Protein backbone atom coordinates (compact mmCIF):
# COMPACT_ATOMS: atom_id res chain seq x y z
CA UNK A 1 0.00 0.00 0.00
CA UNK A 2 1.37 3.44 -0.89
CA UNK A 3 1.36 6.47 1.42
CA UNK A 4 -2.04 8.03 2.13
CA UNK A 5 -3.09 10.88 -0.14
CA UNK A 6 -3.60 14.42 1.07
CA UNK A 7 -7.31 14.12 1.95
CA UNK A 8 -7.43 13.37 5.66
CA UNK A 9 -10.28 13.83 8.13
CA UNK A 10 -12.46 16.30 6.12
CA UNK A 11 -13.63 13.49 3.85
CA UNK A 12 -13.93 10.96 6.63
CA UNK A 13 -17.56 10.29 7.63
CA UNK A 14 -16.65 8.23 10.70
CA UNK A 15 -14.57 8.73 13.80
CA UNK A 16 -12.74 6.33 16.05
CA UNK A 17 -15.31 4.65 18.32
CA UNK A 18 -18.23 4.99 15.87
CA UNK A 19 -20.51 1.98 15.41
CA UNK A 20 -20.75 1.03 11.75
CA UNK A 21 -22.30 -1.73 9.70
CA UNK A 22 -20.73 -3.14 6.58
CA UNK A 23 -22.96 -2.83 3.51
CA UNK A 24 -24.69 -6.00 2.40
CA UNK A 25 -23.61 -5.41 -1.20
CA UNK A 26 -22.47 -7.82 -3.87
CA UNK A 27 -20.89 -5.85 -6.72
CA UNK A 28 -18.80 -7.49 -9.44
CA UNK A 29 -15.09 -6.80 -9.89
CA UNK A 30 -12.16 -6.65 -7.49
CA UNK A 31 -13.67 -6.29 -4.02
CA UNK A 32 -11.46 -6.19 -0.95
CA UNK A 33 -14.34 -6.42 1.55
CA UNK A 34 -14.57 -10.15 2.38
CA UNK A 35 -17.89 -11.86 1.82
CA UNK A 36 -18.17 -13.02 5.43
CA UNK A 37 -18.04 -9.53 6.93
CA UNK A 38 -20.82 -7.98 4.82
CA UNK A 39 -23.79 -7.06 6.98
CA UNK A 40 -21.79 -7.24 10.23
CA UNK A 41 -21.61 -4.45 12.84
CA UNK A 42 -18.29 -3.23 14.26
CA UNK A 43 -16.49 -0.30 15.87
CA UNK A 44 -14.07 2.05 14.10
CA UNK A 45 -10.61 1.48 15.56
CA UNK A 46 -8.30 3.60 13.37
CA UNK A 47 -8.59 6.02 10.46
CA UNK A 48 -5.51 5.37 8.34
CA UNK A 49 -6.02 8.23 5.86
CA UNK A 50 -7.29 8.15 2.28
CA UNK A 51 -6.14 5.89 -0.52
CA UNK A 52 -6.92 5.38 -4.18
CA UNK A 53 -9.88 3.05 -4.55
CA UNK A 54 -8.63 -0.49 -5.38
CA UNK A 55 -11.98 -1.36 -6.99
CA UNK A 56 -11.17 1.24 -9.67
CA UNK A 57 -7.41 0.65 -9.77
CA UNK A 58 -8.16 -2.99 -10.64
CA UNK A 59 -9.54 -1.79 -13.98
CA UNK A 60 -6.50 0.42 -14.68
CA UNK A 61 -8.32 3.63 -13.74
CA UNK A 62 -6.98 6.34 -11.37
CA UNK A 63 -9.09 5.34 -8.35
CA UNK A 64 -9.97 8.94 -7.50
CA UNK A 65 -11.34 10.49 -5.38
CA UNK A 66 -9.37 8.64 -2.72
CA UNK A 67 -11.44 6.75 -0.16
CA UNK A 68 -10.87 6.99 3.58
CA UNK A 69 -9.67 3.63 4.90
CA UNK A 70 -10.52 2.44 8.40
CA UNK A 71 -9.53 -0.38 10.66
CA UNK A 72 -12.77 -1.77 12.06
CA UNK A 73 -13.02 -4.15 15.02
CA UNK A 74 -15.67 -6.86 15.20
CA UNK A 75 -16.62 -9.36 17.92
CA UNK A 76 -15.80 -12.86 16.68
CA UNK A 77 -18.99 -14.22 18.26
CA UNK A 78 -21.01 -11.71 16.21
CA UNK A 79 -19.55 -13.00 12.94
CA UNK A 80 -19.40 -16.76 13.52
CA UNK A 81 -22.49 -18.22 15.23
CA UNK A 82 -20.53 -21.31 16.32
CA UNK A 83 -17.36 -19.45 17.36
CA UNK A 84 -15.53 -21.66 19.87
CA UNK A 85 -12.88 -19.20 21.11
CA UNK A 86 -13.01 -16.75 24.01
CA UNK A 87 -16.14 -14.57 24.16
CA UNK A 88 -14.12 -11.34 24.08
CA UNK A 89 -12.08 -12.29 20.96
CA UNK A 90 -12.18 -9.70 18.19
CA UNK A 91 -11.05 -9.50 14.58
CA UNK A 92 -9.93 -6.32 12.76
CA UNK A 93 -10.42 -5.63 9.06
CA UNK A 94 -9.28 -2.76 6.87
CA UNK A 95 -12.39 -1.41 5.11
CA UNK A 96 -12.95 1.48 2.74
CA UNK A 97 -15.52 4.13 3.65
CA UNK A 98 -17.94 3.42 0.81
CA UNK A 99 -18.53 -0.01 2.37
CA UNK A 100 -19.59 1.44 5.73
CA UNK A 101 -22.88 2.82 7.06
CA UNK A 102 -23.72 4.26 10.48
CA UNK A 103 -25.20 1.57 12.77
Amino acid at each position, binding site marked *: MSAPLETEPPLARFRVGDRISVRRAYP*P*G*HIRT*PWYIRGCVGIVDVLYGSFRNPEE*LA*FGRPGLPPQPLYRVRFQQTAI*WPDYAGARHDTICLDLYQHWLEPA
Partner: protein
Amino acid sequence: MRGHHDIGGAEAGPVDREEHDLALWEKRVDAMMMLLSQKNLFTVDEARFAMEKLPPNAYENLKYYERWMAGICDCLLRRGVISADEVGRKMAEVKARQSESA
Protein backbone atom coordinates in the same frame (compact mmCIF):
# COMPACT_ATOMS: atom_id res chain seq x y z
CA MET B 1 -21.28 -13.63 -6.73
CA ARG B 2 -18.80 -14.88 -4.14
CA GLY B 3 -15.40 -15.17 -5.82
CA HIS B 4 -13.66 -18.53 -5.53
CA HIS B 5 -10.75 -16.69 -3.88
CA ASP B 6 -13.02 -15.16 -1.20
CA ILE B 7 -12.95 -18.16 1.12
CA GLY B 8 -12.74 -16.62 4.60
CA GLY B 9 -14.73 -18.83 6.98
CA ALA B 10 -15.21 -21.69 4.50
CA GLU B 11 -14.30 -25.28 5.39
CA ALA B 12 -10.65 -25.71 4.43
CA GLY B 13 -9.34 -28.68 6.40
CA PRO B 14 -6.05 -28.58 8.31
CA VAL B 15 -3.62 -25.72 7.67
CA ASP B 16 -0.07 -26.55 6.60
CA ARG B 17 1.99 -24.47 9.02
CA GLU B 18 5.39 -25.59 7.81
CA GLU B 19 7.73 -22.91 6.45
CA HIS B 20 8.98 -23.40 2.90
CA ASP B 21 12.16 -22.11 1.32
CA LEU B 22 11.49 -20.07 -1.79
CA ALA B 23 12.90 -21.32 -5.09
CA LEU B 24 14.87 -18.92 -7.27
CA TRP B 25 12.02 -18.60 -9.79
CA GLU B 26 9.62 -17.66 -6.97
CA LYS B 27 11.93 -14.88 -5.81
CA ARG B 28 12.17 -13.68 -9.39
CA VAL B 29 8.39 -13.53 -9.75
CA ASP B 30 8.19 -11.55 -6.52
CA ALA B 31 10.85 -9.12 -7.77
CA MET B 32 9.07 -8.78 -11.11
CA MET B 33 5.80 -7.84 -9.43
CA MET B 34 7.56 -5.15 -7.36
CA LEU B 35 9.54 -3.72 -10.26
CA LEU B 36 6.71 -3.68 -12.80
CA SER B 37 4.27 -2.03 -10.40
CA GLN B 38 6.92 0.50 -9.29
CA LYS B 39 7.45 1.37 -12.95
CA ASN B 40 3.67 1.92 -13.21
CA LEU B 41 3.25 -0.73 -15.90
CA PHE B 42 0.25 -1.92 -13.86
CA THR B 43 -1.07 -1.72 -10.32
CA VAL B 44 -1.00 -4.54 -7.77
CA ASP B 45 -4.81 -4.29 -7.79
CA GLU B 46 -4.90 -5.12 -11.50
CA ALA B 47 -2.68 -8.14 -10.91
CA ARG B 48 -4.83 -9.30 -7.96
CA PHE B 49 -7.97 -8.92 -10.06
CA ALA B 50 -6.37 -10.93 -12.87
CA MET B 51 -5.62 -13.73 -10.38
CA GLU B 52 -9.17 -13.66 -9.03
CA LYS B 53 -10.42 -14.18 -12.59
CA LEU B 54 -8.36 -17.34 -13.12
CA PRO B 55 -10.56 -20.45 -13.45
CA PRO B 56 -11.76 -21.82 -10.07
CA ASN B 57 -9.40 -24.80 -10.16
CA ALA B 58 -6.39 -22.44 -10.47
CA TYR B 59 -6.54 -22.04 -6.70
CA GLU B 60 -6.11 -25.78 -6.22
CA ASN B 61 -3.79 -26.54 -9.14
CA LEU B 62 -1.42 -23.57 -9.30
CA LYS B 63 1.21 -22.72 -6.74
CA TYR B 64 1.09 -19.31 -5.07
CA TYR B 65 3.75 -17.75 -7.31
CA GLU B 66 2.37 -19.49 -10.39
CA ARG B 67 -0.82 -17.52 -9.81
CA TRP B 68 1.26 -14.34 -9.46
CA MET B 69 2.95 -15.18 -12.76
CA ALA B 70 -0.43 -15.65 -14.47
CA GLY B 71 -1.61 -12.31 -13.04
CA ILE B 72 1.50 -10.45 -14.16
CA CYS B 73 1.29 -11.98 -17.64
CA ASP B 74 -2.38 -10.98 -17.99
CA CYS B 75 -1.59 -7.36 -16.99
CA LEU B 76 1.36 -7.06 -19.36
CA LEU B 77 -0.71 -8.40 -22.25
CA ARG B 78 -3.64 -6.09 -21.53
CA ARG B 79 -1.41 -3.05 -21.12
CA GLY B 80 0.39 -3.86 -24.37
CA VAL B 81 3.80 -4.18 -22.73
CA ILE B 82 4.30 -7.56 -24.39
CA SER B 83 2.35 -9.40 -27.09
CA ALA B 84 0.84 -12.87 -26.84
CA ASP B 85 3.08 -13.96 -29.70
CA GLU B 86 6.20 -12.84 -27.81
CA VAL B 87 5.10 -14.80 -24.71
CA GLY B 88 4.32 -17.89 -26.78
CA ARG B 89 7.66 -17.82 -28.59
CA LYS B 90 9.59 -17.28 -25.36
CA MET B 91 7.78 -20.15 -23.63
CA ALA B 92 8.58 -22.46 -26.54
CA GLU B 93 12.22 -21.34 -26.41
CA VAL B 94 12.50 -22.04 -22.68
CA LYS B 95 10.82 -25.42 -23.08
CA ALA B 96 13.25 -26.39 -25.85
CA ARG B 97 16.20 -25.29 -23.70
CA GLN B 98 14.93 -27.35 -20.74
CA SER B 99 14.45 -30.52 -22.79
CA GLU B 100 17.95 -30.07 -24.22
CA SER B 101 19.53 -29.90 -20.80
CA ALA B 102 17.37 -32.77 -19.47
